[in-house]
């Protein structure tokens, strides 16, 4: 079955089993490998993408559901919030192994798009679904606050 959607601003059509999780379409078909597999059951957030502007676990999103949607992956992430987040991430060296970080950056960017100056509690709520097995959580929290301050100017 052919399914069409927009990824990072480009029209894409894929001919796959409609039950295929978006994650595997992005990776196996479109070779957008920045989006990672960690659990496959919406527990870890490594596969987080933006679907029509909201964070979404692509591992539990059948590709049939995204027909006509607008998807952003880490490769296509842009805008002031994304830039502030990524700059803050680099400035304090958040990543350790790095494998979870695409998902962390996607969730953090979505948070700042919604809430320009998040509290610790906002961060807890927005980031609780993103596991970091290296436990870079202290720095994730700090980098989100740092990014919010940059955006305030």
């Amino acid at each position, binding site marked *: 079955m052919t399914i069409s959607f927009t990824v990072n601003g480009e029209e894409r059509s894929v001919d796959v089993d409609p039950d295929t999780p978006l994650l595997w379409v992005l990776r196996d078909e479109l070779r957008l490998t*920045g989006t990672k597999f960690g*659990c496959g059951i919406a527990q870890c957030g490594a596969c987080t993408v933006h679907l029509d502007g909201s964070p979404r676990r692509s591992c539990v999103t059948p590709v049939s559901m995204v027909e006509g949607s607008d998807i952003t992956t880490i490769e296509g992430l842009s805008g002031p919030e994304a830039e502030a987040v990524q700059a803050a991430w*680099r400035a304090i060296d958040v990543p350790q192994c790095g494998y979870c970080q695409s998902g962390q950056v996607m969730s953090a960017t979505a948070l700042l798009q919604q809430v320009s100056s998040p509290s610790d509690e906002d961060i*807890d709520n927005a980031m609780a679904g993103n*596991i970091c*097995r290296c436990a*870079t*959580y202290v720095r994730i*929290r700090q980098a989100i606050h740092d990014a919010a301050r940059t955006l305030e100017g």
Partner: protein
Amino acid sequence: MNIHTNRRAFLSGLIVAVALPGLARAQQKSGAAAFFNELPEGSGELSANAFIRIAPDNTVTVLIKHIEFGQGPYTGLTTLVAEEMDADWSQMRAAAAPADVEKYANLAFGMQGTGGSTAMANSFMQMRKAGAGARAMLIAAAAERFGVPADQITIDKGIVSAGGQSATFGELAEAAAQQTAPEDPPVKDPAQFRLIGTDLPKVDSSAKTDGSAQFTLDVYRDGMLTAVVAHPPKFGAKAASFDDSAALQVAGVQKVAQVPTGVAVYADNTYAALKGRDALEIEWDEAEAETRSSDAMIEEWTAAAKAGGKWEITKSGDVEAALEGAEVVEATYVFPYLAHTPMEPLDAVVELRDGEAEVWMGSQMQTGDQGTIAKILGVENVRLHTMLAGGSFGRRATPDSHFAAEAAEVAKANGKGAVKLMWTREDDVQGGYYRPLTVHHMRAALDDQGGIKAWDHGIATQSVIMGTPFEAMLQGGPDSTAFEGANELHYAMANHRLRWAQMESPVPTLWWRSVGHTHTGFAVECFIDELLEKAGKDPIEGRLALMGEDHPRERAVLQRVAEMADQSGDYGYGVAVVKSFGSYVAQIAEIEDRGGIPHVRRVWCAVDCGLAVNPNVVRAQMEGGIGYGLSAALYSEVTLDEGGLIRQRNWDSYRILRLPEMPAIEVAIIASAEAPTGVGEPGTPPIAPAIANAWRRMTGNAYRRLPIIPVA
């Protein structure tokens, strides 16, 4: 015989040879080393030695012999080279060295591999010498070009100059390549260090922030198939028969084949492979399977810990006599099986061609993995690319190379072409190679001054080394990873005995971040804390008194953490100090009683790891080590139910720490001129006992079984 011992028996001939001296020869003959390290003709690059490449574009690439999975060798080892070359940090790059034991052995192991927090320690002089050698070649080239004596040349931030003349490394690379590499170049006096000891930005943060970092899972080869393996539901079971008719009906499934570890499904894409695996019907032969429950095992292990076991590890004085008639304090500590669950599940890509294979894998034991793959595939040349890995915590360092073996078996059953083998999270959580289930039994008596009159300690646990190809290294002795941290204590005791009961099970076990210290640190530091409380002593002052003057570095971290910690809140506070892998770490935890369970608010941590090459990386490893230890202290366990089925499947039931549960952490690094020691593991052991001690002192209840908050 079960599946794991079978495989071990099959491989042991090869790997034992590999683990012993003489291995370099064997590997070189196999041709495995021949692939790499030759630069393309006329590239104008300087290959100063096995570790350093200087390109005409002025970048300096350091080949890192250790796998990078977040613990920082790409940054740390690159710093050593940049320091000795007087390079500019912005021109430095890091890349994985090939698997080649001749050039890239871990000097602590004699084969290529990473573990025991040795990456910095074993590389410290080697990489500095490499950098100093490259520097000498650049200076020799500059001397010719400038027409001045070498001793008039200086290098500052990557600019080589003398008088009014100057050149970049890139401009000198081609000429420098013509110079002879010095045999034993002098290295800097540490007083001259400009980069070592500073918070240089990590070389890999950028690619790990924009999704461009390449992990094994990201490797796609032309025509590659993706494979998953259906593994037995119980440890020690094996596939008796299977029906693949439904699996083969799944669109995209290309093939089903039995491999020694189960039944492999090959497909055009990942989803088809997973769907095909779900459609398999498999009869498992469970004759040799582990059918005991964790509870039953804990009962057996407890009895064994009490009895002491056959290995008497430490014996000073006469414990039995000293305990006779004394008031004896007793405690039993129980630790579950733990999975490592690195963020990136195990994966590998194997491309089989005529007489050779190319492999992409987050290999932590390159020499063993490479040899294993070569043997199974029956090829001379195995070109192994060590990929960035999404965490390991010990999981990728397997003495039996079982994952490399499975990848090779899967490739072999497929024939020529490329196959990516991927484990799902369920394969990972249920796949064994766990931190062993362990029980400690302790007895002690105090003297009149509150000193320790007798300390009797029994540990029951499986060995992670015996029965594997690494056993030869024990030379008939006990496996110290079972009791490290419990044999030599930094507390004075008049009579001390430690015994180890080696337990057996088909459940395969493995080192898990900080290895034996994960449980010995807890048992020792909780028990000592109870004894001090009983003696009416302060946990810090009491520990310092028992340490005496013989343990200055333990004392220093303990005193430092006590100074840092603000213990004035209306909360519980607990301390622990553990030396592991040559580094000393003390932590104080501040905890809050939230409805009868501890919530960790803040942690203070003091670490002495010798010279801190990159203090920022050291702090990050302490933070991560604390978070990793907290998962296990609070939530994580793998349990076998009656009959041997594994209860946990994924991160829903194998719970780990999430961001809201992470405490604030403050780290202090003790200034030191000692040679650097590891930081990947030593941050983990103290946190669990610090929490348990805080809780006991606050509530009067001692946690003696982990995790504190079982999930399922």
